[in-house]
């Protein structure tokens, strides 16, 4: 049901743009107002989310250790899985953010007769890595529309991505990869009953929005062949805050609308995991809480408890009878 809702939403997007631009001719609205507004929502929304998290204290040092702690000198410790200082934490975070370390650990449990078996299961990791890196590369590639002259690294990236020279204009490898990865990430949600059970409409929606974004992009490049010169004029206009809506096919406006929708949706959805991961207290703290005091949160109050002297008064008889020492200091203090 969630998937159907997401699909309908995305199709509605297409219709809205088609009617808005193709029929009503609202090019400035879809070309200028919505993209700027979406970008603003994205920026402010993300800053808001980050501040919202950052202002909540981390009261305790709740690291999840996935390797040997630092204790005795002759025991080899794991710097990456149980970091002891901030430098090692940075290394752990780099692995987590750039290599999806934890996902790489993934196992798949199977019950075979009376035995539980855990096999390595890296498909999710592979799908996730492929998707994120392809998306990232595509974003970088798009910088060629927002810069003039185009910086050399971006040009080189473009050449590498279209290295195989399939078709004209050349097919980008990342386009193929992202489509494959999206399809995998979508199908696994449908195919695995457990995942189907936990998946919400808000899990399918971003997938479908990105599908829409990618497909409209590919259509525009390879099939509808939008006038790139006009597009570049328009994007440079966006950069210089002097935008003029281009006279190009609706497909371009659909592409633009998808990225706008995604940007606006980003800060208010699960997509905030992109920055959230940096805040995760089980990963971004050092496992040195016995060596370095983690200061308590401002709201934390030291507990009130039954002191020894109060306790001694209560159990005095039993203490004396069983020959346990009575602390005279308890009385001197009074």
């Amino acid at each position, binding site marked *: 049901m969630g998937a159907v809702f997401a699909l309908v939403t995305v199709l509605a997007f297409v219709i809205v743009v088609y009617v808005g631009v193709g029929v009503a001719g609202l090019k400035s609205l879809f070309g200028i107002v919505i993209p700027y507004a979406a970008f603003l929502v994205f920026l402010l929304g993300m800053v808001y989310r980050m501040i919202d998290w950052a202002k909540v204290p*981390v009261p305790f040092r709740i690291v999840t250790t996935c390797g040997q702690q630092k204790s005795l000198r002759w025991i080899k410790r794991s710097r990456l899985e149980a970091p002891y200082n901030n430098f090692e934490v940075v290394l752990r975070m780099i692995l987590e953010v750039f290599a999806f370390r934890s996902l790489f650990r993934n196992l798949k449990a199977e019950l075979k007769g009376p035995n539980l078996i855990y096999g390595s299961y890296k498909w999710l990791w592979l799908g996730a890595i492929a998707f994120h890196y392809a998306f990232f590369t595509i974003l970088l590639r798009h910088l060629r529309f927002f810069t003039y002259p185009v910086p050399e690294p971006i040009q080189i990236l473009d050449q590498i991505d279209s290295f195989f020279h399939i078709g004209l204009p050349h097919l980008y490898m990342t386009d193929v990869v992202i489509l494959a990865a999206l399809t995998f990430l979508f199908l696994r949600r449908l195919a*695995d009953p*457990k995942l189907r059970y936990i998946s919400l409409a808000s*899990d399918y929606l971003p997938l479908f929005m990105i599908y829409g974004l990618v497909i409209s992009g590919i259509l525009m490049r390879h099939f509808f062949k939008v006038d790139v010169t006009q597009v570049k004029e328009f994007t440079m206009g966006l950069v210089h805050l002097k935008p003029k809506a281009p006279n190009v096919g609706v497909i371009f406006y659909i592409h633009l609308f998808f990225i706008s929708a995604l940007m606006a949706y980003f800060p208010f959805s699960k997509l905030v995991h992109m920055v959230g991961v940096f805040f995760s207290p089980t990963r971004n703290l050092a496992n040195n809480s016995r060596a370095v*005091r983690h200061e308590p949160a401002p709201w934390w109050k030291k507990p009130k408890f039954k002191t020894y002297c109060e306790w001694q008064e209560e159990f005095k008889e039993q*203490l004396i009878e069983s020959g346990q020492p009575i602390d005279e200091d308890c009385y001197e203090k009074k």
Partner: protein
Amino acid sequence: MAKLPKPDELIKSIDWTPPEKDWMDDVPPDIKPGRFCYPAKKNILEEIGFPNPRDWSPLDEDWKLPSNYREIIIEGMKDRLSKYRSFKLFMDICVRCGACADKCHYFLGSGDPKNMPVLRAELLRSIYKGELTWQGKFFGKLAGARKLTEDIIKEWFYYYYQCSECRRCSVFCPYGIDTCEVTMMGRELLHLVGCNTNWILEPVRNCFKIGNHIGIPPHTIKEIIEYLCWDIEEVTGLKIEVPFNKKGAEILFVTPSGDYFAEPGIYTMMGYIILFHYLDLDWTMSTYASEGGNFGLFTSHEAMAKINAKIYHEAERLGVRFIIGGECGHMWRVKHQYMDTATGPAPKNLETPRSPITGTVFEHAKSTKMIHVCEFTADLIAHGKLELDPSRNDKYIVTFHDSCNPSRGMGFFEEPRYILKHVCNNFYDMPENTIREKTFCCGSGSGLNTDEFMEMRMRGGFPRANAVQYVRDKHGVNMLACICAIDRAALPTLMNYWAPDVKVCGVHELVANALVFPHEKTGERPRTLDMRQEPLKPEEEENA
């Protein structure tokens, strides 16, 4: 009490396929005997000043919640969202990738989809969204949002007491989302409306008032330990007196009270006593701070701190130099990750722990001034300060159960293994995906080790037991060593159910078996019995 299915019936009943019905509509849960713990008694809640004391049962239709339970919970949730970044973040960033789904032992053993960590968190997350975010209020179910109802309180109670806060899911989560944090918050919220369990809160009350979970008064503690010393005399011929509340001792020793009275914990306790006597250590126990464990951790952060604070208080009064903590799982999560922040800084008289025998300075504990007894012993062995005869443990083929909390809350893997490899000749680890940071819970952690919860314990313990069965069949393992008092209480039952020929022990029980005293070497009184007063070499007895 509910009838427990036989092991083969239980395995046959496991089905990981979720039902057709949407989980959001599947409330209230079908509450089954054997899968919940009895509620906290009225007088217990009254004594510790917790809200809404009453007589009730989870099987009742009416849970007698306060009439304004919705406001109470929502305010409590807002309050915690502003105090714990973990909670706020974990409510916000889950993408439901499902990597955690088959990592939970309760899910693996029960197939109940709400035991998938992602869904366990979603039970709370959906209310957070539905009551506190505009997206949830506006889009409702599409955004995974629900409104709080009495049925949802029932669902929370059922499933937040089917989580042992073991944090295995957190290892596999790409964002480190820790269901333990979510369960802790869920339980804290449930306390606000008086839904909690007696098995946790009675020990908490005992700790507050008397000093340990079981509520043993000081004279009885001394008596119990004296009994153990008589047993030690039987086994070793040594007359040992354990120091209590001794001012000016060098070391305060704190261990879970489970080690005082119940098998096989008592053998571990005997192990500590024998080891400290061997070293002629200047140590003391306290009958005031007589609990190392901390059921407060399973209650609330405040209760945890209130229980733990006594240890520093007592260390200050006695004027000791540092603290050694016994083998215990959740206790060490508290000592490692919470103690200093919640109840520190350590009193001034404490110093960075330094082994009086080897001179090793435990720099990694320079702030809390508290070390794990396995760190202490491993250091002794590495320096050759213990004369050990591992052949005394030859009747045992040993494997090691990594307890959840020292594993994923400390990174405590090599110390106990190092000791085991020196005190016994036959040691085999379980398969790698079931040990160390990927270790499985005993099925009874976080205050769920009660009899009425037995079916869920056997289900949750199945992944652990299954790995034990594997090494039993492959290597003939007959002894499961562990460093946790809840394990020592829970694993014998689990083994009895799944692998009846495997016994359970603490690491220091095996240390004490192997420890050679001078008088034993001279042949004056050779050791023939182990800590359990059974012959060290069973076949000799048969021959005799």
